[in-house]
Each structure stands twice: as structure tokens, then as C-alpha cells.
């Protein structure tokens, strides 16, 4: 099913062309960049080995997209380096020949970040999958950037440690992709996002220089915090080849609960009550009726499908505290109007519930041919207002919207279930999206809480940031990548 996002959504329907293609043509016209040619391929094959350089159509068509379905473009070649040095070699070569480079992890991004430019070089890092070290003394973990997120946490778990960020895609997303998108997850409320766990990064700069930023020290004020610049940079400033992550002692106990509501308002009130009671649960996720129905349809775990809102709550830590907090949360849910509150029988059942929530987005794709996912985020206090607003927008424009999201941190994923072939309906979707973005910005929120700008949110960035910080960002890009070769056209256009 097509996942279309606002901004380029408008672009698509008006121009029938793909933004990355337009940008590329524009750059090519200005003779700023080249495409992959036979000569370049030969050099790549000499650098790596021929079987790690893909060029045939059958081989590269599957690299034309990421989790953002409608955006599609055919790269010139896809390469699989195994070491940081090989990445640096490839970038140096591309730099010399002025060939744009798009870095790719597992291609699960939801803003079009790893969608290639026509004829560009894609550097895919999934084969850089070595877990280098788990340092129990310093509570750090070092890995190549192609390691799968879940494998990071599994490795930590083996020695009683814990890597908290758990995006819905954790079974397949790469840690490099997580850092490049500063991904969040289901435990953000208590544990924060990817950025909070990055201590060091090995990065290949746009000119091919290999450098290390940060270290294993908890305290470090030697100069600018350069690693932070690369977290969330979406592959536009450098290629992350290795990471040093902070890990925590693994919580000894965890309790998962479900609260069912007949009104969204009651759910939102519960969340406020829990926070007001000075409890910080690790997870407060919510699914609305449509989403619950789709998830149940897929996972068949016995979720009730006649509720207005379902809230998944989780607390972890010391067993005694967990029991106490869980009891308190369940009482608060009841007191604030939950129709039913239940606790998972054991950790396995809890894990099943969380897994079902992780699949919410893909499960929504069952309903209609096109699924347009949003990522708006508002300050937590504005959450109920925002949910009510989304609801009214859906009613006003007669649209079907399934909403789910991270109640604890104000990050919502209203998801339009529509059909891209129905132009009249698509027009209403566009207007509705515009209204949701306006309201988000008015409430002091952001157009993307965790999925990144990529191509999808480009059109709204300036409006949210204002001229000053927008230009600051562009000047940083200009300083690091004067040729504009790393993931050009993502986040913002290079020139006006």
C-alpha cells in the first residue's frame, strides 16, 4: 500500500513527478553531479569485490524505495562495504567523480530518507554487522552501524544489560539508521530516544575522511559536541560506520497492563493523572478503535475491538516498586473512567502485547489501498486537544483516520486510510493534513517527532523552524558537504 506523506503529497498530485528526480535533473543540468557509469563501476569493483557491487536491474530495483512506498527511484549501483575503510574509499571515489551518495540501512525509514536519486550510488551498510564489544565495566557497547537494533539489546541482555530505544521496526532497523534518524520507541517517556544513548560515533565525512567523535567517558567537554551534529542528520552530513552506545542495568521486573476506554478523553485524563502522581512508566502507548481492529485482525491475540481507545501501559524496575506502581496505575485508570483494566499474566504475554503494538502501522495498511502516516508531536499537556482536533478534522472532511501513538511523549501517528487513485478524496486528505500541521505548530509542536524530515516533511520545515534556524542548518550542510553529494535534497533543498 502506498504511504504518502504531506508536502510531497501535494507535489505528487500536482506535478506527477518525483521530487528526488526533479532535484536530480536540476543538479545534473547545472553539471554539478554525475551518475554512476561503467568506469565508476569498475573502480568500485576494484575497491570492493565484484559480488558486492550490484548494478543489474533485477538487483537494484529492490533498492529504489524505503518504508515510504510511493517514492521510487532507480539508483545506478548499490555497494556493500564490510569495513569503515571501505566506506571511506567509496565516498572518496564518489567525491572525486561527483557522484551523489545515498546511505542506506535496512530501508525502513518513513520519511523517504534512503530513497535514492536516479543513477546515484547507494551505500548499503547491512553487511557491516559486527558487534565489536560489550564493555561491562564502562556500561558501553560498540558495534558496526549495520547491526540490527534488536541484536544490540539482545547482546546487552546476555550480560544483564539493557539498550532501551525500541522503535517499532527494531527487529530489522539498523543501529546506524536509528542514529541517523534519532529514532524513538515505545519506552521514550522514561528512557528517552536514541540520542540519549550515543556516546561515540565513527563517521566518514563527505570528502572521505574517517574520524571518531566522542568516547566512552560519561563527561566530556573537549570542544563542540560534534557527535550530536550527526545524530538525526539523516545521512546528509556523513556516514556513520561505528557506534559506541550507553547501556543500562537491565530492569529486574516489568509489568504490562491494558486499559480499555469508551472515550479518548478518559484515556488522556488517565495519562495526566499518572504523571501527576509522580510515576514515570516506561510505556504509555495508545491505539484508537480502527487501529485496534487492524492489529487484532493481524495478531489475533484477543484484543477487544469495540473500544474507543486502548492504552498499553508498562512499568519496569525494582520488583517491589513495579508492583506498587502497576497497582497505582491500574487504580488511576479505573478512577479516570477506564471500562476495564487488566494486567498481562506474565512477561511473555506482555511481550506479545507490545509486539502487537509495534505492528500497528503496517497492520493499518490492511484497510484501504493507501496509508498516509503522520508523525506530529505536541507538548504532552496539549495531547487531548490534539487528538480531539484530529478527530474533528476527520469528521469535517469525511475521512477515515486511524490514530495511534506514544501518549507519554505527545507523539501521535494519525494515519489516513485512503485511496491514491481517488483524486477527489486525495484532495480532502491534503486539506486535512494541512490543517493538522497548522494546529500542531500553533500548539508549539513539531511536524516530526521521530521519523525525520527526509523528503516527506521538507515543505513544512521552514514554517516550523523560522528563517534563522533553517538557514543555520543549511550553512552547516554547506560547510561540511560543499559539493552537496551526501543524500542531496533530503531535509531541505540545497539552493533556493
Amino acid at each position: 500500500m502506498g504511504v504518502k506523506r504531506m508536502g510531497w503529497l501535494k507535489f505528487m498530485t500536482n506535478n506527477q513527478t518525483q521530487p528526488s528526480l526533479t532535484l536530480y535533473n536540476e543538479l545534473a543540468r547545472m553539471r554539478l553531479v554525475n551518475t554512476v557509469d561503467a568506469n565508476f563501476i569498475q573502480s568500485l569493483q576494484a575497491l570492493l569485490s565484484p559480488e558486492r557491487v550490484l548494478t543489474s536491474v533485477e538487483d537494484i530495483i529492490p533498492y529504489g524505495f524505503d518504508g515510504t512506498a510511493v517514492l521510487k527511484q532507480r539508483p545506478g549501483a548499490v555497494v556493500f562495504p564490510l569495513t569503515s575503510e571501505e566506506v571511506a574509499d567509496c565516498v572518496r571515489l564518489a567525491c572525486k567523480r561527483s557522484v551523489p551518495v545515498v546511505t542506506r540501512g535496512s530501508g525502513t525509514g518513513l520519511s523517504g530518507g534512503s530513497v535514492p536519486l536516479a543513477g546515484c550510488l547507494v551505500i548499503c551498510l547491512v553487511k557491516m554487522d559486527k558487534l565489536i564489544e560489550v564493555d561491562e565495566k564502562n556500561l558501553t557497547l560498540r558495534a558496526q552501524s549495520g547491526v540490527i537494533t534488536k541484536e544490540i539489546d539482545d547482546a546487552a541482555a546476555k550480560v544483564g544489560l539493557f539498550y532501551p530505544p525500541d522503535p517499532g521496526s527494531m527487529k530489522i532497523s539498523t543501529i546506524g539508521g536509528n542514529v541517523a534518524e534519532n529514532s524513538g520507541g515505545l519506552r521514550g517517556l522514561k528512557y528517552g530516544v536514541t540520542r540519549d544513548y550515543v556516546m561515540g560515533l565513527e563517521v566518514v565525512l563527505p570528502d572521505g575522511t574517517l574520524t571518531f567523535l566522542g568516547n566512552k567517558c560519561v563527561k566530556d567537554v573537549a570542544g563542540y559536541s560534534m557527535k550530536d551534529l550527526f545524530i538525526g542528520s539523516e545521512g546528509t552530513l556523513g556516514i556513520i560506520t561505528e557506534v559506541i552506545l550507553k547501556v543500562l542495568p537491565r530492569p529486574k521486573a516489568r509489568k504490562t497492563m491494558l486499559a480499555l476506554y469508551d472515550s479518548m478523553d478518559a484515556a488522556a485524563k488517565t495519562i495526566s493523572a499518572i504523571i501527576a502522581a509522580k510515576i514515570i512508566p516506561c510505556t504509555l502507548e495508545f491505539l484508537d478503535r480502527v487501529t485496534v481492529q487492524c492489529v487484532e485482525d493481524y495478531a489475533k491475540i484477543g484484543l477487544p475491538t469495540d473500544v474507543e481507545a486502548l492504552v498499553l501501559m508498562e512499568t519496569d524496575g525494582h520488583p517491589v516498586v513495579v508492583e506498587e506502581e502497576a497497582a497505582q496505575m491500574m487504580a488511576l485508570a479505573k478512577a479516570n473512567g477506564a471500562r476495564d483494566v487488566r494486567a498481562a499474566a506474565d512477561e511473555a504475554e506482555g511481550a506479545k502485547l507490545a509486539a502487537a503494538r509495534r505492528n500497528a502501522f503496517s497492520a493499518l495498511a490492511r484497510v484501504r489501498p493507501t496509508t498516509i502516516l503522520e508523525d506530529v508531536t505536541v507538548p504532552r499537556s496539549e495531547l487531548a486537544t490534539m487528538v480531539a482536533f484530529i478527530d474533528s478534522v476527520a469528521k469535517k472532511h469525511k475521512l477515515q483516520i486511524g490514530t495511534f501513538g506514544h501518549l507519554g511523549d505527545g507523539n501521535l501517528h494519525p494515519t489516513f486510510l485512503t485511496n491514491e487513485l481517488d483524486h477527489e478524496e486525495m484532495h480532502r486528505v491534503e486539506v486535512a493534513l494541512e490543517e493538522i500541521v497548522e494546529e500542531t505548530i500553533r500548539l508549539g509542536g513539531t511536524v516530526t517527532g521521530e521519523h525525520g524530515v527526509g523528503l516527506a516533511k521538507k515543505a513544512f520545515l521552514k514554517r516550523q523552524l523560522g528563517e534563522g534556524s533553517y538557514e543555520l542548518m543549511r550553512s552547516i550542510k554547506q560547510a561540511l558537504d560543499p559539493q552537496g553529494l551526501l543524500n542531496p535534497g533530503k531535509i531541505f533543498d540545497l539552493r533556493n
Partner: protein
Amino acid sequence: MPQALLLQSLDYSVLQQCMHCGMCLPTCPTYVETKMEKNSPRGRIALLRAVADGDLEVSKALSDEMYYCLGCLACQTACPAGVNYAELFETARAEVEQANVNDGMQRGFWRWITLNVIFMHPWLLRLIGRVLRMYQSTGLDKLMRKLRFFGLMPRSLAKLEPQTPQIAAQFSDDIILPQESPIAGQGSRVGLLTGCIQDLAFSNINRDTVDVLIANGCEVITPRSQSCCGSLHAHNGELELARELARRQIDSFDLDSLDAIITNAGGCGSHLKTYGHLLHDDPLYAAKAKVWDSKVKDIHEWLVQIRFRKPTAGAGVSEVTYHESCHLCHGQKVVSQPRQVLASIPGLVLKELPESNWCCGSAGIYNITQPEQSQKLLDRKVANLKLTKAPIVATSNPGCHLQIANGLRSCGDHPCQEVTQPVTLLARAYRSERS
């Protein structure tokens, strides 16, 4: 005149259903092996969509890719968006066969002999079975091996020879009556599918199935000389032959008089349940096929549905582990029932097999067409079996049964010494009640 592309006549929404999320990638054995998108469900679907969109020609490379795919359907279980990969897979294989991109006399000949001749004619298949049985029972096979006779055959065939299943001493028709009734109080009336490989190599499992059904008050009707169910044909791009076999299969049962049609082979069952779709265009059979689909039940599924009786005696084993046939768990979503059957046997502990639903590499005739990848998967399975330390593994598909038995045989000291099936253990338990 060029034929119309099958992928283009397919309902486009089946291709569109994939929203590129990648959630299926970590469950796909071929992607996990190579980490290349082309070898993943998402990548394969993208290629098929490119064909439908007219952006890609049906090529040898596409064909190779579709034959590298195991058809294990693990992706279908993993996919939250409800992608019907089985249909895409079958259509794609039919597409590459129609396009004839695989020319090659030898491949063509063997495909023709197997799909168009042997597996279309039940009598011929059984005749071959008899010849093989004689060959094996007279010790001729060992002699031939000694004489290096197989050195004269094409290499790929010679390699296969040791994998030929041991042919059963008697076929199903010899040991199962056309109609068998329980002694006391009859419950349901069911038909039994004896399968082809199951019949040739494991007719005893068919017997066990009948015994278990009778022990649970079912009257069992077993038509003689049954045809192949056609799954082999559907999975190998011969949809027309598959339709022919489906019609024959339907005709061999008196549907209205039966409460269920029982299959005990995961791979067949998964295909048997889709006759409705296969024949949806057939004016004479469409309606019958729908009824057929609703009546086909995997034996474990049926046993749990009729609340089978728990045996009061054991099966003579204390520990068992369970390997899931792909088409039973991913194709038919029968996951808990075989485990319930095993767990019902007194004194038997079920030890969970790590990656129990990861393909063993048998995958129809994949072990013949892709021996290298098949071996890798078999090695992985054998290593996981070792971890359980269980002396016996149960599975419910003749392909898996043979593949795993081969794997264990070639691995010297393995704790797991026997491959069996859950119904066999249940039948044994019922039998020992009487002793």
C-alpha cells in the same frame, strides 16, 4: 502472438498491498542468508510489481530469483499488512515458465517427466514406487552404489540418489480399507487424503491417522488410488495441471456426505485449502471447490476441533521436540494444535525447538533444485535440534520428515535419533492403552 503477462492480469491490489515496511525481512531465510533485498519478500514483490508496471521484463534473473525463494511463506506470517505472498509466488513462477526464459533441454525434460507424466498419473507413480521398493529391498541399490553406477548419471541426479525415500513395504490402499468405522458410537464421517509421497514412503502414517480418527469415533472413507493434490504443480508454475488435479481430487470424494476431509501432510493441506481460489473461474467447479475448502482440515486441527480424547497410556518416549512444517504453520496457521496433540500424551515432555518454524530446506523439490541453500538450512535445523537434546523429533509433512531424517543420518553423534509425526505418537499411545 505474445501471451498476456499473468502478473498484469493479477488483481493489482495484491501487489499494492505491500507497503514496503520491511517487517518480513528478518523472517525470510534467503534474506537472512544473503542480506540482499532481491532475495527478500519485499524485494521480490518489488520485482513482480515492476513486471506488472511494465518496468521490467520477465528475465532469467527473475526466474532464478523466484526459484531461489523457498515458498516457505514465513513472510506471510510476518506481514502485518496482510500481503498474499502465496498467490504472488505461484503467479510469478507460472509467469517465468510461460515466458520460457529457462530454456535448457535437460531442465525441460525432467520437469516434463515429473510434472506432466509421473505426478499426473497415480498408477504410474505407484508403479515407480513398486519398482523402487523392489530395487531397495533386494539390496540392488547397495550393489549399484558399490559398482559406482551412479557415477554414470548426470551429477545432480547422482547426488540425489542417496536422498531417495525408503519406499514403504505396503501402500495405503493395502493397509486401509475404503471404509472403516469405529466399533462403538459413530461421531463424524470424514474422508482421508493419502497423498503421494506420504503414500509411497509413509503409508504407516496414513494408517496411524485412520487409527487415531477411529479412536475418536470418526468413520473414515479413503478413496482408492488417489491423485497428487497438485501443490507440486502450482508451486512450479504449472497452474493448468494443478487445476486438472484439483478437479480430479474433488471428484473422488462425495463431499455432501462428509463432515471433513482430512490431510496429514502440511504441504498438501496448505494447497488443498486453496482450491476455491484456484478454480474460481471454473463454472462447473467454483462452487464445489468453495465447499471443499471449508471441509479440508489438517488432522491436528480436526482433532482439536472435535476435542480428541486424551490417551491414558504413554507412547514409550519421554521427550520429544517439534519441527513445524512451513505450510502447516505459515500456510495453514496450524501452530498450537500439533503441540496440543503431543502434550496430551502421558509421560511425554515437549521440548520447544529453537526456530521451530524456520524452513528445513526441503520446501517441495527445493532440495533438488537448490541443493546448496537447502543444505545450509538443513545444517541450521540439525544444529537447533541438537540444542534441545530431545531423542526424537516430530513433524507433520513428508518432505520435512525425509529432509530431517537425511540430515540426522549424515550427522554422526546426534542426540536426536528418530523422526516421527505427532499422529504416530498419538496412535502408539492409544494402542498401548490396550496392552
